């Protein structure tokens, strides 16, 4: 009985890990208000982690880094050739101008902070 339970739990956890981290996709991201989006870098996450924008538009990310860990220092969007160094607890304005449609990964230097910029 215990063996069945442990194995069932193991298989279930593996399935849940695959679904939660790889298969699940959010339906809607956060869109800009007046061309601005406030993005917080804290506790290992970008908030919001999914940003929606229209192709051809320009948005400004008002990024505030609250996490002192060194890996959160750089904010990178490889697909848009963006790599910026964030100050601590100070707003940093990053203008993203007219990207082409597509999904762009936002991440830190070590790829532990992850987010997506979805351009439609």
């Amino acid at each position, binding site marked *: 009985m215990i063996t069945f339970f442990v194995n069932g739990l193991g298989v279930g*956890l593996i399935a849940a890990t695959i679904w939660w981290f790889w298969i699940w996709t959010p339906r809607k991201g956060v869109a800009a208000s007046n061309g*601005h989006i406030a993005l917080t870098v804290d506790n*290992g996450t970008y908030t919001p*982690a999914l940003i929606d924008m229209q192709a051809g538009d320009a948005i400004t990310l008002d990024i505030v880094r609250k996490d002192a860990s060194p890996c959160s220092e750089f904010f990178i969007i490889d697909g848009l050739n963006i790599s910026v160094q964030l100050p601590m*607890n100070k707003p*940093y304005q990053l203008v993203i101008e007219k990207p082409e449609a597509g999904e762009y990964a936002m991440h830190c230097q*070590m790829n532990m902070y992850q987010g997506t910029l979805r351009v439609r």
Partner: protein
Amino acid sequence: MNHTAQHTKTHAQDSSVQLAISGATCASCVSSIEKALSNVEGVTSASMNLADHTAYVEGGAPTQALTQAVEAIGYGATLIEENDDVDAQRDEQEQKYYRQLIRDMIIALGLGVPLMLWGLLGGTMMVTPGSASQWGWLVAGLLTLAVLATAGRRFFVGAWKAFIHHNANMDTLIAVGTGTAWLYSMAVVLAPSVLPEAARHVYFEASSMIIGLINLGLALEVRARGKASQAIKRLLDLRAKTARVIDEHGNENDVPVEKIQLGDHIRVRPGEKIAVDGEVVSGSSFVDESMLTGEPLPVRKEKDTLVSAGTLNQQGTLTFRATRVGKDTALAQIIALVKSAQGSRPPIGRLADKISAVFVPSVIIIAIIAAMIWFNVGPDPRGVYALIALTTVLIIACPCALGLATPMSIMVGIGKAAEAGILIREGEALQKAANISVIALDKTGTITEGKPSVTQIITFGETDENTALALAAALEQGSEHPLANAVVNSAKEKNLTLPEATHFESANGKGVSATINNEQVVIGNLRWLEELGINTSACNDATTRITSDAGTPLYLARNNTVIAVIGVTDKIKVDARDAIARMHQLGLKVVMITGDIQSTAKAIAREAGIDDVIAEVLPADKAQKVKALRSGNQIVAMVGDGINDAPALAEADVGFAIGTGTDIAIESAGITLMRGSLHGVVDAIEISSATVKNIKENLAGAFLYNVLGVPIAAGVLYPFTGLLLSPVLAGAAMSLSSVTVVANANRLRLFKAHKHPSNTTRSDA
């Protein structure tokens, strides 16, 4: 790097501040915020810009009162500070974070070490139901919980936040690993009877030790990272804080550097730093520019010469007019470029990026599978072995080492290059520079000094040298070509009166024609005169004499008859031959691209030790020639300085702009040399090679660590050797792995470019 980042800025006056406002969406929000700010005591005016979500507030109100006023009406406000302050605060933040990590390490090891020693010195780690040890372990469990909640808090909060964002990171592994060990141990303490006797082992020491060791690893990493970014700190330290500005009445006042305006006259006394870029209006002195250019010898400055912010005046006194201030100075631009480049990512790191993006969930799955295998086919107590395997796999896996491998080396390598006066625009240029096989050099200003002078005038018929020179100068005076300048300067030195020339026509890269004294006069290269139908057969001897001396012949014809050949020679830079020898020792093929005729080009190539010559190239065709060089799977670098080199620099795999050249050339190049020497090209290649080698070492180490560490932690050696790694050892290994990567990247700081051809090797980190 072509990012569109826009740094925040501070309002110029002391009594004003700039706030970043969040939550404002419409004009009425603007009105409310302006009103709230205006009501704060001390505010004289407040205006908000909805477009960039910033508010400017004049007056002497404290910042806290301003932010509170905005927050009180439902919006967010944060003070925007100048980048200089941000840079200065970075160190402070790092120190604060370092102290936190050390404090957390002490807390965690303060519990973990005694518990571990208890076990090592023969104390039982097993729980006996109903005994006093059960109560003792309960206390230990609660203390461990306190450690997890304090010293380990950041990992658990980070893991939870990441989890709800459907993300998994380093914190996830640490939190799940230590949390599982604690939960299991608490289950043992609270209900030991439920478990078989052999499975009543507690692992509180593992949870505490892992948290302590990981905090220690992070602290060491912060320290090592601080060293890695020293190049930027050194550049920032070059900035002067004040300057002695002379006002309209001739009074001198020390003024903060950020208040210097364009056109201000600034006095620099012996031993003082130059505060902003400018042009000397009086005085003379030698200025040490080594911090920007890498050039060790001080440079003489006198009226009309340019000075740069951050350089150091030596013995004399100078007065200069400010021509570029604030973020427009060369120093500020260098700092911005180096910062941007240090964050860029070369293609070599992309595989690591792809792996680290899926790394953590993969490790979680491997850990669960390992635990299931131990539980199903492992020895008794199988539950304990399953728990050890699960925890150890989660803890030993280190995505940080993978993620750090490339950026740390890039940060140190690009910083090291900047210290040598080499500005690498992005990581991709650095990676390509390490793989160059052919290097194409522009001639004028790159191999030669770029200051040609007239060395021979060979005339025909009744024309004398001065007449020929005056006619040539009259034609060339409207041109900015270096050869034309040489002719005009030579005529000026001889105080010749230039005849009036009209009806100018210029054939780009070929020559100039005009009407002088009702006669058609042309000056240009041989090919162009032949295209015009002018017989040049009489010039053969003159051409040979000039070209054998590495001179460039200019043919002067009047009414379709050649009357003179003027030889213009541009001296080869004193260290060009040595630098080219170093290129050969790196295994590079060196090619010269020039508009000169073959014989002149070959004479220069012989003198400089160049392998191959592409001569008689029109300026517009240089890029085409670079493209042709690239066609044979060669990685081609182009080195140039002029406006006409820009397309060729852009066409090359790596463009090197000589910093003494034009801004357009610099914009087109991946790498800019702040000094004119070709040694800078070789230094850049050597630094790039050393950096790429360092990245490869880091990547190999990080891959190997994880590829070997995870299976060993899962217990693959157990059937053969009986070895199963302890979670505590896994924590120590994991901490050390990322520290090792950072330390290896820091080795690049010791790199020294070779100066002597006999000692040069391709990579030597």
